[in-house]
């Protein structure tokens, strides 16, 4: 009743919506970098939207399904294959026992999510399945997946009636995700408490210039390369709580955007914040890609998030109905 890691990828971790309520102890939430993809993958297989998923960068893990499974991939298209059969993203797919899922090439996006129906049987830490790499806790033994790790599935359903001789077979519906993401650029931001400290030229540069995601980017933060931004005058700041999406100004004038494994506090000027609705789009940009920022108001940011969450809720309900209908056709549950 499990999935075996035949070959680990660059960084494959178990993630969910993250752990809340412990940031006063310095324990950051972690969680999926792209919460839309987590939500979509889970919805497609009929899970609660924040069930634990496998988050994978490229190169991604090769996974052996030791038993039947209903899975869905979402987020980046990393050219998933079972033998010579492509496995699409944003569609539920049934896997036969002993099928091996491989990711062959980065087609689009940066991070792929795999959800399995009924979820993975991993232990929660402080109320979340997310892997906390620094604490070495949560997810699968608090670390990235390694060769021969065995991830138990909570429940296995024999899908042989539908699969017949197929190694993998798509179910006949999908989710169109395009309008859930911003089309690439610009990434929308709201002003931070230190925005006013920038000199006038730098304020203009923040929204006019192109910034490149450097290779020194990871789950903690995206370091950007762009024009060096200058403050009107030097300031010494007291460290304070920061959040995912906070854009900090480093002493060399470059920017860092805090991502899922961000520290809970920071002492650099907080210039701006990537709106929550656009954080998944940002997470799916690849290193060396360029981005632009567009300033909007906090009210607009909140409205965009609200509409995005409503849409995800509708999609989840639609998926649920579709799946229940299909399962009953085959006398499954």
């Amino acid at each position, binding site marked *: 009743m499990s999935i075996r890691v035949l070959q680990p990828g660059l960084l494959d971790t178990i993630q969910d919506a993250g752990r809340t309520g412990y940031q006063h102890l310095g324990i950051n939430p972690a969680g999926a970098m792209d919460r839309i993809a987590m939500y979509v993958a889970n919805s497609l297989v009929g899970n609660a939207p924040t069930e634990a998923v496998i988050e994978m960068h490229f190169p991604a893990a090769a996974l052996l399904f030791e038993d039947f499974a209903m899975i869905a991939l979402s987020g980046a298209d990393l050219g998933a294959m079972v033998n010579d059969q492509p496995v699409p993203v944003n569609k539920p797919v049934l896997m036969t026992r002993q099928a091996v899922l491989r990711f062959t090439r980065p087609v689009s996006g940066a991070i792929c999510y795999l959800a399995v129906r009924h979820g993975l049987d991993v232990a929660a830490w402080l109320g979340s399945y997310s892997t906390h790499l620094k604490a070495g806790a949560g997810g699968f033994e608090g670390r990235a997946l390694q060769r021969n790790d065995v991830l138990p599935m909570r429940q296995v359903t024999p899908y042989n009636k539908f699969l017949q001789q197929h190694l993998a077979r798509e179910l006949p519906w999908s989710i169109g995700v395009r309008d859930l993401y911003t089309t690439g650029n610009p990434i929308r931001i709201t002003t931070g408490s230190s925005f006013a400290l920038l000199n006038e030229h730098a304020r203009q540069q923040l929204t006019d210039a192109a910034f490149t995601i450097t290779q020194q980017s990871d789950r903690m933060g995206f370091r950007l390369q762009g024009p060096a931004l200058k403050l009107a005058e030097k300031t010494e700041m007291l460290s*304070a709580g920061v959040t995912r999406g906070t854009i900090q100004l480093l002493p060399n004038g470059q920017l860092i955007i805090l991502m899922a494994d961000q520290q809970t506090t920071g002492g650099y000027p907080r210039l701006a914040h990537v709106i929550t609705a656009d954080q998944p789009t940002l997470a799916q940009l690849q290193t060396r890609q360029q981005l632009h920022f567009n300033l909007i108001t906090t009210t607009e940011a909140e409205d965009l998030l609200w509409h995005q969450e409503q849409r995800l809720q509708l999609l989840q309900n639609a998926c649920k109905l579709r799946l229940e209908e299909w399962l009953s056709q085959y006398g499954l549950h």
Partner: protein
Amino acid sequence: MNTTFSITPLGDSALIIEWEQEISLPVHTLVMQVFHYLQSLDLPYITDLVPAYASLTVLYSAAMIRQQAPPPAFQWLTEQLYSMLQQAAAVVPPVRRLQVPVCYHSSLGPDITDMAHRKNISVADIVNRHTARTYTVYMLGFLPGFPYMGKVDDVLATPRLKQPRLQVAAGSVGIAGEQTGIYPLASPGGWNIIGRTPLRLFNAALDESCYFRPGDQVQFMPVSLQEFNQINGTEAR
């Protein structure tokens, strides 16, 4: 004392309450009053609270607030916070007094000899000055359970290392500027390491994984290398 504060959005899902920007116990007590008051309310739409030196970051679910109040959520929450902060003024924050054994032997505090040399004082003088004060845990950050404590004796204040170490041992006690802190986990780090505690300060297997809490009052007790080895690995409780 100046008790005025400001409330500013920190993105679309967090607000920051800021008091006078200084490192002082009176200002931090204001932070802790509001922190404990909001914790005690246990409001479902507040997802996290991050107290720091002179600020409290409040993370919230805008979606949950919008289900019960007219948008925008940040405006509604700001108004709520203004009245909550008045209530909080009556809170007496609980304060724990902790004693933490530290061995200042140069094998465990690789920067102590150099620091003494540069400041033209003895290693014993550093130990005396470091253990003479009771420190306030102003905030936890950087790593799970890492306490930012202050302030140290002016003589001990030292800038961070120019070249951070790739690995600092768990339990290492360091100084950065006017602050002193302890690495609960092994990690890269740039603080000047002057000693190490034998206590285990982070254990994910425990219900309370982190030993320190914001607002703790901490005193260091010097122990010998022999004592260090005897109690090394003991759970801090």
